[in-house]
């Protein structure tokens, strides 16, 4: 490996940027960097910002980061925008809302394309967050795509998940009923300068009061991200949540679950790759054709593929001996 790791550990931002690219592209080289730097991670507090498109996630992320800078803390930001399902290209525009931090040496903003991942994140988000963590940022903020009501993945990745709502949109309450509210550690009513903010706060309170007795009630905070209003209270609420995670043992539990999730999902990818390699493309196509022609059921076909791996493995070992 080149001197990038050393430069990274010396705090050089260009080295950080380069390593993120290699990790994001999931190259073998990227995995080497991750291996070298992973031991340095585990110190940051990760914050997820989710909510509908246009709800103010990027603006809020920028305003929150500015609040952390006032408190003398450093912040890494990973902002995800969607990739086109047709061309696989993307326009990443979250930086537009984070201009005030553009030249702050204590802030690093990285735009990421969703690259087809489900759940509002990017395929390599965990790895990129680990790299930012290893760089030594006090906080790493992850902004999700914000496409829909099923963006629950973020709660597994971030220690504190913030759900952004807006007054006067009506469909918010629908989204909340759909279940996303359950992943929120903190609820934010952003655009509090618009009419209806207090109404939304009481609607949210009413909704939360329906939750089973003894379950956690996330705090509800009003913010006007464009003016930086409410950021002090938001940073305090995040700090309080951190303390709560530590004192209830949830922190360890969250980390263990996240580790399990990461290991299993990587293992799944490795196995799939092995399956693809054990069966030549024309054999795979033939198998798939039989399923399409209803001559074989999908389950049996998949088992055939998996069996091919088991057959090819011992051969590979023998060859090496």
């Amino acid at each position: 490996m080149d001197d990038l790791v050393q430069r990274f550990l010396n705090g050089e931002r260009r080295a950080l940027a380069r390593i993120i690219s290699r990790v994001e592209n999931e190259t073998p080289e990227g995995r080497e960097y991750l291996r070298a730097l992973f031991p340095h991670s585990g110190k940051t507090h990760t914050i997820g910002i989710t909510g509908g498109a246009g709800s103010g996630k990027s603006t809020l992320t920028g305003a929150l980061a500015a609040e952390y800078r006032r408190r003398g803390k450093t912040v890494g930001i990973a902002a995800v925008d969607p990739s086109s399902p047709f061309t696989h290209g993307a326009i990443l525009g979250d930086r537009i809302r984070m201009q005030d931090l553009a030249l702050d040496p204590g802030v690093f903003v990285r735009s990421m394309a969703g690259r087809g991942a489900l759940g509002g994140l990017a395929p390599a988000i965990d790895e990129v967050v680990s790299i930012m963590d290893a760089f030594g940022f006090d906080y790493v903020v992850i902004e999700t795509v914000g496409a829909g009501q099923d963006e629950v993945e973020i709660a597994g990745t971030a220690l504190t998940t913030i759900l952004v709502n807006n007054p006067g949109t009506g469909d918010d309450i629908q989204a909340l009923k759909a279940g996303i509210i359950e992943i929120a550690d903190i609820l934010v009513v952003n655009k509090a300068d618009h009419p209806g903010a207090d109404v939304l706060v009481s609607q949210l309170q009413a909704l939360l009061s329906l939750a089973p007795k003894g379950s956690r009630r996330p705090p509800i905070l009003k913010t006007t991200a464009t003016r930086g209003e409410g950021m002090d209270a938001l940073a305090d609420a995040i700090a309080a949540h951190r303390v709560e995670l530590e004192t209830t043992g949830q922190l360890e539990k969250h980390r263990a679950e996240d580790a399990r999730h990461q290991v299993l999902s990587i293992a799944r990818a490795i196995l799939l790759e092995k399956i693809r390699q054990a069966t030549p493309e024309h054999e795979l196509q033939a198998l798939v054709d039989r399923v399409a022609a209803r001559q074989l059921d999908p389950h049996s076909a998949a088992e055939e593929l998996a069996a091919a791996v088991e057959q090819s493995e011992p051969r590979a070992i023998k060859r090496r001996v």
Partner: protein
Amino acid sequence: MTAPTATKIRVLIAKPGLDGHDRGAKVVARALRDGGCEVIYTGIRQTPEMIAEAALQEDVDVVGLSILSGAHLELFPRVVAELKKRGVDDVLLFCGGIIPDEDTKPLEDLGFSAIFRPGTNTQDIVKFVYEHVTK
């Protein structure tokens, strides 16, 4: 068009200075997106420092400057200097907008590999990027 997870060409499209003409920059950003690139668009009113810092943090392969105000000979050298200062010395640089023919030479000398003027077919821009960036 490339596979969803394949290594993507990353492009920064930036508008330096007080120039508010952003149609061209947006059209170019969209064309590159449709060509399969990941395009970081930072909006109008960017200082040379902001552009260079964004190029560094986003680790882009290409930096494209759009300008219609006539201030290119004043602003572009400063962008190039800020990029150099940060060690961002291996990006493909190009630009477009209202740029008189006689300014072609000084911009080429600065390191701009192409200048696209009004009326350019955006497909030519996409083609240029794919021909000059190898990933």
